[in-house]
């Protein structure tokens, strides 16, 4: 009898512990671990790479390819959250993530990341080809080991080099369809690679305390805000010819070029505006221009890839300009 009462009390206590949210996650917490917002960018760019390729897959193979590329991206996200849990606890932007919030343990995140990474690479290889699967495996390795474990806490160029990881999905999509590499996916890679630094530096300008408190050597922390603003402008200028060059390849056309001209002109103007502003003005208006530039950078990337998609549709209807 006493044993039964004790057992009941223990059950009740463990139930209350669970109710506090300690290591008893719902399905949504595991989804959050895969960084669904980053995954949406991966899905979209990989889809464009796959559809713009000159060879086509069966629709189910295409669906599987995009799904496993997205899951590979999700695996990278889970492994990133596992390794960065210590700094995620410090930064306001990341405090509510499942590990710092105590809903998922680091071990669970690492296990999910490794398992999903293996399954996604293997399944992409079986569904399409092993060249694409190898590139997906390299992308996961690059994001987790080269960026997260090495560059992120070591150099202010972390975002510049680490941006490569986010730039691979359209190349993987193209390779899944063709099994080879060509100029258009290389330029798609370059577009995302050169877009990443100004995008994240704009974020670092208005999330100013987060990175310095966590000891992440962002350019804003190591070289100051003036240098960061100069770098943002420089990247918008370097980015423009790459974006326009993509329009002259087999995936481009007049629609893409028109969109690219407008978006790049606006992006350079935004970079110029940030370069002209000083910190006092930015603090006074709570970084309005920096926030606007950050939001526009998302539209910039989406616009370019949507234009490639539009060109693909037009090419399919026999309206190829070149």
């Amino acid at each position, binding site marked *: 009898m006493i044993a039964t009462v004790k057992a009941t009390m223990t059950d009740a206590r463990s139930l209350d512990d669970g109710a506090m949210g300690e290591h008893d996650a*719902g399905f949504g917490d595991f989804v959050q671990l895969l960084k669904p917002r980053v995954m949406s960018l991966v899905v979209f760019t990989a889809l464009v790479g796959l559809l713009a390729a000159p060879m086509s897959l069966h629709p189910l*193979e295409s669906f599987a390819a995009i*799904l496993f590329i997205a899951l590979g991206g999700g695996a990278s996200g889970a492994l990133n959250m596992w390794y960065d849990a210590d700094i995620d606890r410090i930064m306001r932007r990341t405090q509510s993530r499942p590990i710092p919030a105590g809903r998922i343990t680091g071990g669970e995140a690492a296990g999910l990341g490794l398992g999903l990474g293996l399954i996604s690479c293997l399944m992409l290889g079986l569904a399409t080809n092993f060249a694409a699967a190898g590139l997906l495996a390299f992308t996961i390795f690059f994001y987790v080991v080269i960026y997260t474990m090495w560059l992120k806490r070591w150099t202010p160029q972390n975002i510049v080099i680490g941006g490569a990881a986010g730039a691979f999905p359209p190349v993987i999509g193209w390779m899944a369809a063709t099994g080879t590499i060509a100029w258009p996916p290389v330029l798609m890679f370059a577009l995302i690679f050169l877009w990443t630094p100004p995008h994240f530096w704009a974020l670092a300008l208005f999330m100013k305390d987060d990175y310095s408190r966590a000891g992440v050597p962002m350019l804003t922390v190591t070289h100051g805000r003036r240098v960061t603003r100069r770098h943002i402008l420089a990247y918008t200028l370097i980015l423009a010819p790459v974006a326009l060059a993509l329009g002259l390849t087999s995936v481009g056309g007049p629609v893409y070029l028109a969109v690219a001209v407008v978006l790049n002109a606006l992006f350079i103007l935004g970079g110029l505006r940030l370069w002209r502003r000083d910190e006092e003005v930015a603090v006074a208006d709570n970084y309005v221009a920096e926030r606007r530039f950050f939001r526009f950078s998302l539209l910039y990337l989406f616009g370019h890839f949507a234009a490639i998609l539009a060109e693909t549709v037009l090419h399919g209807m026999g309206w190829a300009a070149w």
Partner: protein
Amino acid sequence: MVAPIRPDHELHQRRRSRNMGLGAVLLAFAILIFGLTVVKVSRQTADGQPPGMTAPVSP
């Protein structure tokens, strides 16, 4: 004696969401593998060769 009906504890709701989610993911995965197998096999048979067979060697 009939046990009183109690609403689920939040802990159980979270566990149920996790279990149902995992079940749905596994089911979707099995359907996808089946579909992919059908696509691959029918492509091979459309090429004129039964799956797993090489072209006959002429005498």
